[in-house]
Structure formats: C-alpha cells, structure tokens
C-alpha cells in the first residue's frame, strides 16, 4: 500500500510480460525409466568434458608420463632391458593410471554438491541412484580413454602382448571394472567429506599404498617377508597379475573371477553406503 503520486508502482512499470503462456507446459510426460535417467546423467558428464576439456588432462597426461617414466627409468635397472620390462610393466602402468583417475569421481561429486546442483536432481521424481550411476558411466569413458592411451603408447614403444586384441580387451575390461568399484568408494567419500581438498588428500592416502605396495613394479619375491605378505594380500596385486596374464593370453577363469568378485564385493559394501549418505545429505 504505497500512495506515492510521484513514482510509479512496480505494477505500473511492469513490462508487458513476454509470452508468459509459453512458460506453462502443455502436459507432463511420463517419468523417465531408471536407465533413461542414468543416460541423461552420463550425457551431462560428457557435456561437461566438452566444455571443460582441461579436466581430461589427468587421464591423458598421467598415463603418458607414467608409461614413459617407468619404462625408461626402471626398465634397464629392474629387468635388464626396457623392452623386456615393458612386457610386464605395461599392464601395471595401466592399472595405476586408471585407478588414480577414480578419485576424480569423488572430487566432482563433492564439488557439484557444494554448488547445490544436486538439490534440483533430488527434488525430481527420478530413480535415486541415477545421478551417481550416470556419473560413473561418464567416468567409464574417461577410464577407457586413459586405457587406450597407455596401451597405444605401449604398442608404439614395443609392447607385444601374446594374448592379442582379445587378451588386451579382457585386461582393459578387468581394470575398468575394478576402477568402477573403487569409484563407489570415492563417491561415498565425496559425500561424507566436507571439501574437495579433503577428498583429494584422503584419495592419495588410499591410492598410493594400494598401487605401490603391489606387484606393479617389482617382483614380490625380492621383498622382505612382511612386505611380501602385504603385497600378496593387496587386491591390486591380483588385478595386476590377472591383467598381465590376460594380455599374455594365459589368464585363468579363477583369476578373472577373483578380480570381478572383489569388485562386486566392494560395490556391495560401498553402493549402499553411498546411497545412504546421498539420501541423508542436507
């Protein structure tokens, strides 16, 4: 109630509304299926990569640097020749490069949440895990890109897998499956930790021992007993061995099964934890 003869009320200066009728939807389509919602989130992840290609630097630069560095730095010293070392090293480099990329799942989730983007998604009638599964689908594309880079560079440097294309394919599939399982761990951490920095710090604390205390670079037989026990128990050692053998064409069904079982067990624990944290997040 403003009786101001001099100034116009906001009502009077209001522009003739733009076609306001168009803001009203004709009718609401049926809600998307769980799978359709996941695909939209995967598409969103790919759109983000298109707009911010820098975010791929970690999955492009790290694998290239690792492959070159480890081949030439350790090759001569550890196996007598870089060529010979490459045959056992490359699958290990692949594992390390892809597993290190899993932490970005948690960092991105944490950043999106801090920006409030998920508030909209959480008020939509969509399958609850869709945003996370969709993000993981997008991450699969990143893991495949990193794998292609490592394998391609390895082939150029003289990596000659006896398992052929099929063996390499199985090896890459094992690594990506394991990475997706580990991504759930980082999804959970991304939701329960406060800042992206905290996620990064914890990620290094988890990933470095996990990837280094393994058979990636050295033969466990050369290690002292206690460390050898740790290395033998490390699931990453089993992943590296299975990937190596798959690419060499000698992997057993038990080996492959054990890796997949580890991945499934990890998901069985961390997917519910993640969804609990996601639903409880305020």
């Amino acid at each position: 109630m403003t009786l101001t003869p001099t100034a116009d009320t906001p009502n009077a200066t209001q522009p003739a509304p733009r076609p306001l009728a168009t803001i009203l939807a004709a009718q609401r389509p049926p809600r998307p299926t769980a799978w359709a919602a996941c695909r939209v989130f995967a598409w969103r992840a790919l759109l983000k990569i298109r707009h911010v290609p820098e975010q791929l630097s970690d999955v492009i630069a790290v694998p290239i640097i690792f492959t070159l560095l480890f081949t030439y730095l350790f090759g001569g010293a550890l196996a007598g020749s870089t060529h010979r070392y490459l045959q056992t090293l490359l699958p290990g480099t692949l594992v390390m490069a892809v597993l290190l990329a899993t932490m970005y799942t948690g960092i991105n989730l944490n950043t999106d949440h801090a920006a409030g983007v998920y508030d909209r998604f959480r008020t939509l009638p969509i399958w609850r895990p869709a945003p996370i599964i969709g993000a993981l689908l997008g991450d699969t594309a990143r893991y495949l890109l990193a794998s292609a880079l490592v394998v391609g560079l390895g082939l150029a440097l003289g990596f000659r897998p006896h398992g052929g294309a099929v063996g390499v394919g199985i090896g890459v599939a094992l690594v990506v499956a394991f990475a997706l399982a580990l991504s759930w761990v980082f999804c959970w951490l991304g939701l329960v930790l406060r800042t992206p920095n905290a996620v990064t710090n914890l990620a290094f604390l988890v990933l470095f021992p996990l990837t280094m205390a393994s058979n990636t670079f050295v033969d466990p037989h050369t290690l002292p007993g206690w460390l050898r026990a740790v290395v033998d128990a490390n699931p990453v050692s089993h992943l590296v061995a299975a990937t190596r053998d798959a690419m060499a064409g000698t992997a057993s069904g038990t080996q492959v099964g054990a890796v997949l079982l580890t991945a499934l067990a990890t998901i069985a624990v961390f997917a519910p934890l993640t969804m609990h944290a996601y639903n409880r997040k305020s």
Partner: protein
Amino acid sequence: MNPPSDLAIHATGLTKHFGGTHAVDNLELAIPKGCVYGFLGPNGAGKTTTVRMLATLLRPDAGTASVLGLDTVRQAESVRERIALTGQFAALDQDLTGAENLTVAARLLGYRPRAARIRAAELLSGFGLDDAAPRQVKTYSGGMRRRLDIAASLVATPEVLFLDEPTTGLDPASRNQVWATIRALANAGTTVLLTTQYLAEADELASRVAVIDHGHLIAEGSPGELRAAGGTGRLRLRLADAERRPDAAELLHRLLGGSGSGSGSGSVEAAGSDPADVTVAVADAARATEAIAELSRGGIALTGFSLDQPSLEEVFLALTTTAAPAAAAS
C-alpha cells in the same frame, strides 16, 4: 478451517534442529491450494530449512508435513512428481550452457531428446534468455541465473512451486519479471510458496502470509492483517516552505495522535537532513489523507507526500513485543 483435502501444504509440529540451533520449531502450516503464500522472515529465521523439509530434501526431526495430501517422508517420490523447487542459491551447472541446463532438466522429467530441446528453447524465449542460450551459465549475470533457475523449475508445470527468496539481490527489471511469472503461475492454478525478507513483496503477490522468526511461527494472516498487527506506517511529507515545519508537526501530532490509533501514532520524527521533510507515524491510511487535507486547509502547502507501509522490522518489533497479536496463528 480447511479440510485437509483442500490444502496444498499441511505441516504439524514440524521441527528441525541443527546441533543446538532450533532452525524450525514446532511449526504449523495450512496452505490452501491455488494461492500465493508468503513466508516472511529475516535471515536465519528458518525459511530455507522449512522449504527444504517440505520439498523432500530434508527429513524433519519431529512432526509431519504433507504436500497435496502426500507425506513428505513416506511418499516423497509421489510428492516429487508434483512439486518444483527454486532454491535460495541457483542449482545450475556453471559449465553447461543455459540451453543445456534446461535440456538436462527436461530429459530428467521424461521429455524425449527432441521434445526436450524444443521445451528448453520455449522457456529460454519465455524468460528473455534467447541470446544467452548458447553461453555457459558462468558468464550469466545474477538476474539471468535466477531466471534460468526458475525456468528449470517450470519445465513441467508443478502443482506446488517453492521459491526461496527468488528476488533477493535482483535488479528491478528482473524482479518484475519474476513477479509476473509468479502471477501467471498462480492464475494457472499452481500453488506458490514464496519466501521473502520483504513485506512489500509479500504484499504485492501473496494472499496470505506467515511470519517466522527463530524457527517459530509468530503470525499468520493476510498482508493487511499483518500490517494492522504491525501497527504504524509512515507518512512522509515535503513542505513547500521549510519554515512551516513546526506548525506542520504540531498539526500532525494533534490530528494523528488521538487515542486508539496504535502505538506511537502521531509522533513526528526529528528533522532529518532536509528541513522541508516531515515524517510522521500513522496507524490508519484514511486518517493520513484527512491530515493532508487539513494541512492544506491550514495553509501549509505540500510539494509531495507518500505513505509507506511499516517495514518488516517494524512489523516484527510489533509482533514480538505484543503479547497477543491480532492475527496470531491459531
């Protein structure tokens, strides 16, 4: 009053504590369908927390809430099919373009890819964002972001729309557009719960208003009832001759200070920076016009006047200091 089936939003004993903070405390709300409902309170009053509980984002510690008769905890999924929320801070993806943000939202509501793009373009044009559509949201101004965020909530017209401080920090043109949108939605039958810190905004749009402070509902009623409970507005006069200020002040005090006019009515504020200005508290608009007429009869010429409604702070002061406000919640 209303049978529950007529209510868009119904909350009983709604409570949320954060540690020792009673963000929302035993809140009762009954909001009829199809109205614009103002939810008024200062920073930290508990508006956002309430809206987040009603919009299924936050679980109440105690009490229950239902939206369109559906429980916000047990039937959250069904509630989400019929509501939309535009939060206090834009829920947009800064890296994506405006068009992509709306297309993602449309596809998540079930639109096919092509239909989603068409719907996004329609909304962008409806909100005057055609030119900005192919740009990343991080290049948008605050007003553009806010419009896009509201557009994203309207991809499928919701039956209940929650708008959390949609105009805070907006330029007047963007604010008017938001207001026009809210009116259009209300005309089309959407119930709008609008939180705001400004009584003037609630006055402009809302048919009913709840006032909340420290998590407590302190009053509920029409904006007019609130103003009445809040007591006095202000009559500002600009005298043609600054010399006449003492005469004007004396006259106004006599005319407006009578009994039953509300606390403080008729008290003339001390002269401000401009000696030709007189500001006087006034409880009743009708008596203000009488006073203006009386001034000119008394030969005191005016070059301008305005009657301002009480500010939110004044309404608060009145409501929190009065034992039983006239329009208190039942």
